[in-house]
């Protein structure tokens, strides 16, 4: 009888694509999305701002599971097995640790990805995601600052600036064409030359000010902290060196290390002008606007003593003149209706006067992205089309 089988090997088309690889990439994309959705939890460590450690976070990521309906795990798994063993034999003793492999042979062992994310990458994602513009260093218009830099070589100069490399080169060239050359002549000597060049400030200082009065609860602080973190990351993208200072205030202001900064709770009233005065003093003393791009971020719940208004406004106006930008974040977690507050009035008035200030109100974590976007768009000097 004739054969009913045919054997072929015609799968050259297969090499063109791998479906498994394609769907794996799609899975990874989903992991990335999931990680991004949980970014806020990833950066909740207490000293994340000043000590991002290695500047990476390691996130153990389970492979995503496509859920199916299945029965709840029973108290004891039962299964069929095969091999030399008697009833009552203990194959693996129990204990506090769940026994590995207790699931039986059919289960797939769990595979975990350890995704190591660089903070910079996370910030890059955010920037891409939020389509944030890059910041420009403040133009140093009107401030005459220059630095002395090496530029070119010449035949004259002090001995200390002798350019040995160029000098030897010159000597070699000369010796190549002379019949009885001497090792060096004065004509061979070359010296580095200096020139005065105007510089752009490449350093930045970020002042964080926080209302530490009793009305700032955990939710308010968490919003403020998360915002501070990302605002700082955004600034770090632009400047070679960024310094940070942390100022908390009630009716007075103090400076704190970051680890304590968010824990500080004061009692009594709120007078933001104290914090602004402190910030002004710091800027004047340590951060010459000619050399530093300065930023101040202030977070509060909006309350401020009524009789502090003019003092606060005056100092803020002064800060806005010295710094690149002053941002105010009003944290109002859970608020449904938002009436203007004392503090937002102050900022609104300054902004109306053309000062480099801005304010945003956030009610929940989700609003933070919008707030970040608005701050950065405003500071990059682009029209705010939101």
């Amino acid at each position, binding site marked *: 009888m004739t054969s009913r089988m045919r054997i072929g090997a015609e799968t050259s088309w297969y090499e063109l694509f791998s479906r498994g690889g394609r769907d794996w990439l799609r899975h990874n994309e989903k992991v990335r999305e999931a990680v991004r959705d949980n970014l806020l939890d990833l950066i909740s460590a207490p000293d994340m701002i000043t000590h991002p450690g290695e500047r990476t976070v390691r996130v153990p990521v389970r492979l995503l599971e496509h859920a199916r309906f299945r*029965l*709840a795990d029973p108290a004891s798994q039962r299964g069929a097995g*095969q091999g030399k063993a008697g009833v009552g034999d*203990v194959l693996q003793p129990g204990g506090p640790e769940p026994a590995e492999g207790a699931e039986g042979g*059919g289960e797939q062992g769990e595979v975990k990805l350890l995704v190591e994310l660089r903070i910079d990458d996370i910030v890059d994602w955010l920037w891409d995601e939020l389509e944030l513009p890059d910041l420009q260093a403040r133009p140093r218009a009107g401030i005459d600052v220059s630095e002395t830099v090496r530029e070119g070589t010449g035949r004259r100069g002090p001995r200390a600036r002798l350019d040995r490399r160029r000098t030897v080169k010159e000597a070699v060239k000369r010796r190549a064409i002379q019949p009885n050359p001497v090792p060096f002549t004065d004509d061979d000597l070359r010296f580095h030359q200096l020139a005065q060049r105007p510089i752009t400030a490449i350093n930045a200082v970020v002042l964080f000010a926080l209302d530490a009065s009793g009305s700032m609860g955990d939710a308010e602080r968490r919003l403020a902290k998360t915002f501070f973190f990302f605002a700082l990351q955004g600034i770090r993208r632009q400047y070679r060196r960024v310094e940070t200072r942390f100022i908390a205030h009630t009716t007075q202001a103090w400076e704190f290390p970051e680890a304590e900064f968010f824990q500080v709770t004061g009692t009594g009233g709120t007078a933001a002008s104290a914090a602004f005065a402190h910030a002004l003093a710091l800027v004047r003393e340590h951060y010459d606007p000619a050399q530093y791009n300065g930023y101040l971020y202030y977070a509060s719940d909006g309350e401020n003593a009524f009789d502090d208004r003019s003092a606060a406004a005056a100092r803020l106006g002064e800060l806005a003149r010295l710094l690149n930008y002053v941002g105010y974040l009003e944290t109002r977690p859970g608020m449904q209706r938002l009436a203007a507050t004392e503090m937002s009035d102050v900022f609104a008035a300054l902004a109306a006067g053309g000062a480099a200030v801005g304010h945003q109100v956030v009610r929940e974590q989700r609003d933070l992205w919008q707030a970040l976007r608005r701050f950065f768009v405003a500071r990059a000097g682009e029209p705010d089309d939101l």
Partner: protein
Amino acid sequence: MTVATLSDYAARIEALAHDLGLVHDPVEFELVPENFMMEISVYGLPVRMPHWSFGVRYIHQLIRRSMGHSRIFEVMFPGDPCHAFLVDGNTLAENVLVTAHVLGHADFARNNELFARSMRMAGGHILEQSAARAHRIDAAVGAHGLDRVEAVLDAALALEAHIDVTRELHRPPYSTAAPGPEPATDENAFRRRYRDLPGEPRRAGRAEAPLRLAIPPHPETDLLWFIAHYAPELDGWERDIFLAVREESFYFHPVFACQIMNEGWASYWHARLLREAHFLPQDLYVSAIKAHSDVVRPYAADRQLSLAVNPYHLGFSIWERIVESEGLETARRICRDEDDFGFVRNHLDRELAEKLDLFVYEANPRDGIRIATKDIHAVREAILAPKFNYGVPRIAATKLDADGGLVLVHDHAADGRGLDLDRARRVLGYLGRAWRRPVTLVTVGEGGRERELAYRPK
């Protein structure tokens, strides 16, 4: 290994198989790279719809392969013709063995009533059809975007096994006429008289005599079919996806329901055909038999015991005994009539279970893993437990609300316990996003208390 040599041996093995009484539909063999083979086994079909969950399985398979745990020798798709895939990098001896193995599968698929019914309903060209469906889904991705298509596939593939295989693949919608034949099936005269007895609660709604028949008229376990036909807001292409997954699920069912029999039968025949194939060179025969004993064995060579039962070995052992004691004719009749439930319950007896050292173990964190019993009934049920209801909890659609809301009820009494609530919630999320109206699921939680999970669209 050359295709010509393999073809030559294969043809002679086939002739031998025919002499021994095997009957099969034509088989098209394809020698493919190992990677492709891995993808076939991951996707279940050579060309299938894209979904990220296949990517996860693919990586698991890659890892297992790189640890040397997993080698795939063959994948066989019943049909007319059957399609079988062999790995082009495997040795000639291995592929000769696999050819014989595939002939066993092809004979089984033609003979077994579950396979035959599936073929009658679906036709013999499932591979071509599933490839066409995959292309349609690719086209849908182009037309509607990956996110929307993926949302539908999330739901459809999660419910993959929730079909009613006792009904037709191409099933008409519910009859809209007054009480049709459907309610009669689960409501016989006795039940009706019982319900009419004094003291039985009146059925709500009966008195109002609804003009329309309730949908569904009876608890509907074919969730994919029900969603495709009765979801209030699905577009045509979305219904297509649910039906595509359902059709493939019907196709996979006989393979699932007869795995022990089918693999056992194929293993029995590859062993026998090779033993009787005197034309094979001695060294090739020895290598092939070594490959046989690597696959058809109860546990890995370096182990004394396994917490799983190898279906190849179990099925092989049962068939060997049936053929030996009752003859080939009886064996072929069993092939035709049984699935794994009948096969294991009727033909795995105490004597064989003892010979195979089968046992039931219990595992929990406190006591560790312990051999619980060797009682034959317990052993059979432990082997079969993962196979009930296509391996999934019994969940039925019971009600379609006026607002399009769907109510699902888990038959926890039949399953013996409630659902894994976390996963159930996630599946409900997949389903709800596709259904776009409220979805409710009733099951039991800890302590047997009723739990209602709900999905509400945003």
